[in-house]
C-alpha cells in the first residue's frame, strides 16, 4: 500500500500519496496551480514553468515535483502570481496571438490565464516572429504563430505504433512545431479532434469546425480557469 504523507500549501495541511506529482495532488484537494504544458497521467515536461511554486523556499515546477512529507509549499502569493503573470506575458509576446479572430478564444488556456492574472499590456516587447502556417494535412490546420511549445501534442498524439504526429524542428528562437505530413495524411477523426482539444492554445485546429460553439457556451465564458478545481476545496 502506498505511503500517505502530509504537506502544506499556503499554510494549510493536505495529505497525499508520496511520490505523486504536486500539481495533481493539489488539484484533487481543490488547490489550483495553473498549468499549460501539463496533462494529468502524461509524463511531465516542465517546459512552460507556469506552475512555478516555492517548495521549502525554493522555486520548483509543481508538475515535476513529487510530494513528500513535511513539504512546505507556497502557491498563491503575490510574488508567485507575478512570476506567473510574467510567464503569460512572455508567451504572448513570443508568439503572434490575436484573440479577436482566433477560434480557440473562450476555450484557450493561455487567454484564460491572461484574464486570470489581469494581464493588460505585456511588460516585454513583442517579438513579432514571422511563422508559417501549415495547412497541408487534410484534417489539421497548424497555426504556428500560436504555439507555446508545451509539447502536449508531441507527447500525446501518436499512432498505433507509438509514432508522434507532431515534432519540434530547429533550436532556440528558430524552434517550431511541425506535423509529419505523411502520418497526418491518415490521421483519424478521433485523434484530430483530440489534438485540437489538448492544445492549450489555438495552434492545432481541426479543419472546418471553427466557431461552432456559440459565445456563452465556451469553456471559459462564464467561469475563470481553475474554478473547476477550486470548487473541490475541502
Amino acid at each position, binding site marked *: 500500500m502506498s505511503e500517505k504523507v502530509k504537506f502544506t500549501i499556503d499554510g494549510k495541511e493536505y495529505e497525499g500519496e508520496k511520490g505523486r506529482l504536486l500539481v495533481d495532488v493539489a488539484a484533487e484537494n481543490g488547490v489550483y496551480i495553473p498549468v499549460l504544458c501539463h496533462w494529468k497521467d502524461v509524463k511531465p515536461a516542465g517546459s512552460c514553468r507556469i506552475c512555478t511554486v516555492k517548495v521549502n523556499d525554493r522555486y520548483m515546477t509543481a508538475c515535476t515535483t513529487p510530494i513528500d512529507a513535511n513539504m512546505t509549499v507556497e502557491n498563491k502569493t503575490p510574488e508567485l502570481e507575478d512570476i506567473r503573470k510574467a510567464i503569460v506575458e512572455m508567451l504572448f509576446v513570443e508568439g503572434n496571438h490575436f484573440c479577436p479572430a482566433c*477560434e480557440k478564444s473562450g476555450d484557450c488556456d493561455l487567454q484564460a490565464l491572461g484574464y486570470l492574472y489581469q494581464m493588460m499590456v505585456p511588460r516585454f516587447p513583442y517579438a513579432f516572429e514571422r511563422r508559417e502556417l501549415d495547412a497541408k494535412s487534410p484534417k489539421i490546420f497548424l497555426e504556428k504563430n500560436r504555439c507555446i511549445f508545451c509539447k502536449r501534442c508531441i507527447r500525446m498524439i501518436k499512432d498505433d505504433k507509438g509514432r508522434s504526429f507532431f515534432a519540434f524542428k530547429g533550436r532556440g528562437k528558430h524552434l517550431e512545431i511541425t506535423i509529419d505530413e505523411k502520418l497526418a495524411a491518415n490521421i483519424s477523426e478521433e485523434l484530430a479532434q483530440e489534438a485540437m482539444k489538448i492544445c492549450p492554445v489555438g495552434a492545432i485546429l481541426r*479543419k472546418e469546425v471553427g*466557431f461552432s460553439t456559440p459565445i456563452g457556451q465556451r469553456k471559459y465564458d462564464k467561469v475563470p480557469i481553475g474554478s473547476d478545481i477550486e470548487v473541490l476545496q475541502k
Partner: protein
Amino acid sequence: MTQKITIEPVTRVEGHGKVTIHLDDKLNVAQTRLHIVEFRGFERFVQGRPYWEAPVLVQRLCGICPVSHHLAAAKALDVIVGAGTGDGLTPTGEKMRRLMHYGQIFQSHALHFFHLSSPDFLLGYDADPAIRNVIGVAMNYPELATQGVMMRKFGQEIISHTAGKKIHGTGAIPGGINKNLTAEERDILLKGEDPLNADKMIEWAEGALEFFKDYYLKNREFVDGFAYFPSNHLSLVRKDGAMDLYHGVLRAINSNGEKILNDVDYQDYYKYIEEEVRNWSYMKFPYLKSLGKDDGWYRVGPLARVNCCDFIPTPKAQKQFEEFRAHTNGKPNNFCLHTHWARLIELLHSAEVIKDLLQDPDLLKDDLVVKGNKTDEGVGLIEAPRGTLFHHYKINDNDQITMANLIVSTTNNNEPMNQSVNFVAKNMMSGQKEITEPMKNAVEVAIRAYDPCLSCATHALGKMPLDIKLVSSDGKELDHYRS
C-alpha cells in the same frame, strides 16, 4: 488652377474624412474632393488564413456594422462549402441570420438618424455647434433622444442573442449558424418589458417617420434643393422585386427608373462591375462596366434600395413606400436628403420583419448547418445599413484563402459622396473668401446622408473630424478648417 494637397492617412471607415476645395480666379469652386485616405489591407492579410475564419476576422473592419461583414463573408463561404448561394441553408440557419441582420439594420439606422443626423434637423444645420449634437437633442427633445437610445439598444440585443455578443460575434458559420434562439430569448425580444419589445419598436419607427415628414413639409425647399443630382441606383432585390436586405438578385436602375442591370445573379458581379483607382484616394470608384467610368457610377444605400425595389413586403412599410414613391411620381428619387426618409422606411420595415421572424417557430429548431460539395470560390452580397456590400473569396486545396475582394458600401458611394460635396460647396461657398461654420456643417450634412461611418463618433461630441481647406487659384490657402 488646382493645387496638390498633401494628404495624411486618416481613418477610412470610422470617422475621418478630408475635403479639399479648389477655387478659380474668381473665387468660384472649381473642384471639390472627399478624401478617404487610410489603407486597411484586410484583403491582403486575410490571405493564407483558413476560410472558416473569414466571417470573424473580416468583420473587424468595422465596429459599426460588423454584422454586415460577418454575414457577407458567411454567405460567400456558404457557396464554398456547398450550402448554396444564399438560399440553401436550413430554415433555422437562414432565419437566425436574417434576424441578426435586420437587428443590425435596425440599430444602425436608429443610431444614424437619432444620434448623428437628428441634431441637424431638430436644432438646425446652422445652429450653434455647441448645442448641435446629441447632448443638445437630449436636452431639448428628451423623449425623442430616449427613443433613439432604446431603439439602438433593442437592435443590439437582437445581435447579442443571435451572434453571441453585441459587437463582433460569431453566430454565422459556413453553411449556417452556431446557435438557435431559445424560447426565453424569443420572449424577451417579442414581449419584453416596455419599451424593449417588437411592438413598441414598430410604433416608434412610425413616429420617427412622421417626425421626418413633418420636418420635410416645413423645410421642403431646403431639403429638396440640397445636393440634388440624378444618378444610377444599385441594390439587391428579392427575385420577385421585393425589398430584401439579406439576399436577392442584383438590380440597377438609371435616374429614369429603367433597369440597367436586370436582376442578375451576384455570383457574377465581376462581369458587371469594375473599380477605378484614382491617385488621390485609397478608396476605389466602382462603376457599371456597360456604362463606363464616367456614366456607370451609382448610389447604394437606403435611397437606392427604395428606388430599386418594386414593393416592400411588410404592410406598414409598404404604405410608407407608396407615399415615398408617389412623391416623385413613381420615378427614382434623387434628392440626397431624402436618404433619411428612405432610411426611416427601412427602419420601420426592419421592425416589422423582426416581429414576424420572432413569431416563427423555425428559430427554435436545432437543424443549424448544411454542407455539400466544396468549391474553391464564393461571392456573398448583403445590403448593409449603408449599402450593398460585396465579399468575394477564393481558396486553395488546403482550405486557405488565396484571394479576397471586398467592395464595401462606402466604396460604392464614393462618387455620389464626392458629387454631393461638390454640389454643396459650389452652392454655398462659390465667391466666398471665408468658410463660415454653417457652410462647413453643410458639407458634413451631405456626407452624413450617405455614410455615418465617416461621421460616427463625431457629431456626438459636436465635432466631425473633418479637414476643409479653401485654396485660391494661386495656391494660397484662404482658410483652413479642422474640427
